């Protein structure tokens, strides 16, 4: 199995606070890895370090053997990392289809001259991708709807579709199940599993233990910025430190 993502001693400080503290781990191609940890443990910050939104204070991040820390977010994205955001970030005043097409367009690269004089080939490639992504998440029926007008749950899928339209090699999802009920969460879990089954590498943050323990092959646990566990779900579930810091005593 080839390693896709390598995080090496990643550290991020905000003033006196060390949000991520020397975290190292790897993600192999085709893996489905979960990241869990108490609120404020630094999970989102870690994702921001990977996707280039927050610069590292120390450490390195490699993707496909290339060092990516210090690069602009869009370059990292083009290398094949798609992401969603914890606080849903859709483009509210654009249609659902247009939202997704942005993901596809970003990867294809759009330029002014091409838009004016270019032939149909490129735009059809983009639109094929966008439709494929919409169909993957089952939103094709809402393509023309204004993104601001669709429900919360669908926006979650919209965000995922937008990331999928980039045809990334690694997709990172920040709390995809937040705000979904158990039934919806199960559907989402099945969806992610299917995605993974199709060969996608997934890294996800989630507080819903049913989802994480149910589908992840490996779970990384952060607490106060440090990695306190990195193992299979069954192992993590019984880890004393994890129980103490995160899960609370089992019911």
């Amino acid at each position: 199995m080839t390693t896709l993502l390598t995080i090496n001693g990643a550290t991020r400080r905000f003033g006196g606070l060390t949000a991520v503290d020397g975290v190292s781990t790897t993600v192999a191609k085709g893996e489905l890895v979960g990241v869990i940890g108490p609120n404020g443990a630094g999970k989102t910050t870690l994702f921001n370090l990977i996707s280039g939104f927050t610069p590292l204070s120390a450490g390195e991040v490699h993707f496909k053997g290339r060092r990516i820390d210090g690069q602009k977010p869009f370059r990292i994205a083009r290398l094949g990392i798609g992401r969603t955001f914890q606080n849903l970030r859709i483009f509210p005043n654009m249609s659902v289809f247009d939202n997704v097409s942005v993901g596809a367009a970003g990867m294809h690269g759009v330029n002014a001259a091409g838009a004016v004089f270019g032939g149909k080939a490129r735009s059809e490639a983009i639109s094929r991708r966008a439709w494929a992504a919409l169909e993957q998440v089952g939103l094709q029926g809402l393509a023309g709807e204004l993104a601001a007008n669709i429900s919360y749950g669908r926006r979650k899928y919209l965000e995922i579709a937008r990331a999928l339209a980039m045809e990334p090699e690694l997709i990172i999802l920040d709390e995809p199940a937040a705000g979904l009920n158990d039934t919806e969460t199960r559907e989402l879990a099945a969806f992610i599993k299917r995605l993974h089954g199709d060969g996608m590498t997934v890294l996800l943050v989630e507080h819903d233990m049913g989802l994480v323990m149910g589908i992840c092959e490996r779970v990384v646990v952060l607490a106060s910025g440090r990695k306190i566990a990195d193992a299979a779900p069954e192992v993590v579930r019984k880890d004393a430190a994890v129980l103490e810091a995160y899960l609370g005593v089992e019911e």
Partner: protein
Amino acid sequence: MALLEVRDLHVSMGVQEILHGIDIDLGEGEIVAMLGANGVGKTTLMRALSGIYRVRGGTITLAGEDITNAPSHTIVARGLCQAPEGRQIFATMSVRENLVLGGGPQGLARIDEVLPLFPILGERMGQAAGSLSGGEQQMLCIARALMRSPRVLLLDEPSLGLAPKLVKLIFDLVARIREQGVSILIVEQNARGALRVADRAAVMEGGRVVLAGPAAELANDPRIVEAYLGGHVAG
């Protein structure tokens, strides 16, 4: 007579009606859970109750007084506070200032009761609220609503984005707040947790309440189990 009474509530957005006649009662010291899929209008209901959205028809009564379409600040002043969806904290202001604002005229009077519930907020008092992590912001949002010692507390998905340990804590907290005589209307996707603490529950679908009854009963209703509890009978 119930503390909060909602009768035949209609709310529209533009030309589109979203709530088509909602009836709910919330008794003194009672916890009512509101369940429903995404987009059925739960948040719309909560916003209408807090006076954010205009009501097109029907009445809302709080302790015998009609508060239909009253301005939001008088509703809060009468003791109906909400921890809203989307948190709506003051991102550019410090955690402390957020709490002071939550306290309204009382200011920080209740800080010693609220802060112990969320110790991490105590450590972040001077930090800008916008730089908190998602879960920390959620805690701040709930803490802010508690700062005013409300009579009726509306919680719109309070467990959203919280770690499992905290989710449990939140539901315990809900039960504890009720002990102090506060009535609570809670909207939750975590139906399991909500049904455990609630006295009664209602299920919304397409802008209507389609099912209501004691929480314990609903928790075993096969329809609920199928739709909201992931197919497994609650706890």
